[in-house]
């Protein structure tokens, strides 16, 4: 397995995540897709570390760990926002969430 295999896989996953973000209308599915984007980026961090010139420095796993922790914080706040939006508008459809104030 070479670096290019992992880069191709990561790019495919990035494309799938982007497709979900751009075309789905359910706000929860958009959050799923953002998770897929994060994981594609993490795969790239690890792959570049493994095939890079200096694997003893551990920059790749360290960066991936911090990215995972920040992504976990993002999921917690994002899902809380989804629940707040649902309580206010009674929908999770992005097409209907088009007002900034009380309708």
């Amino acid at each position: 397995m070479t670096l290019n295999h992992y880069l191709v896989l990561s790019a495919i996953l990035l494309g799938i995540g982007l497709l979900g973000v751009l075309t789905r209308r359910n706000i929860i599915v958009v959050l799923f897709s953002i998770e897929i984007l994060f994981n594609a980026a993490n795969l790239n961090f690890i792959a570049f570390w493994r095939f890079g010139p200096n694997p003893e420095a551990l920059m790749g796993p360290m960066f991936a760990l911090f990215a995972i922790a920040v992504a976990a914080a993002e999921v917690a706040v994002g899902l809380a926002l989804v629940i707040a939006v649902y309580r206010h508008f009674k929908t999770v459809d992005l097409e209907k969430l088009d007002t900034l104030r009380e309708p």
Partner: protein
Amino acid sequence: MIEGVAFYILSTVAVLGALLAVSRRNLVHGVFALLLFFAALSGLFVMLMADYVAAVQVLVYVGAVGILQLFAIMLTEHVTGDDLRRLGARGWFWGLMLAVALPVVLLLPPLLNGEPPVPPAAPQSTARQLGSQLMEHYVVPLEVLALLLTGALIGAVAVAHGPEKDPPGKDRPA
């Protein structure tokens, strides 16, 4: 040989899981496909000798994030939302075009460059070194991260809690 078979199996599972997660109409099915995707990615991390990151991936994503998303689905609309209506033909088309074009553009430099780099010798288990580096060299970022997670926790509770219906102590008989 074995490595190649494992890579193709894991990457097929990852791609299928991601595709199902973004395309299923039933959100609960989508969450389980997403968990499959996270688990396959953890296997790929093991193949790349990042054992500690693989363990963290299982703990944080398959454990915590999956449960959180299930809770969010249960707390919002009907589980099987009729969500397959797209943004309309043009939105769907341009989304697909961008989702195909961006990976192709990103992949052009490595694929045109010819020979991929040869991997160095496999490093030892990374958990011990990661732990000591986190406690020595990266201790300030670690503390900042702890602060961020605390802030995210409090913020999530504050946002999801919502406004008080009737403030306590307002019309309480004195």
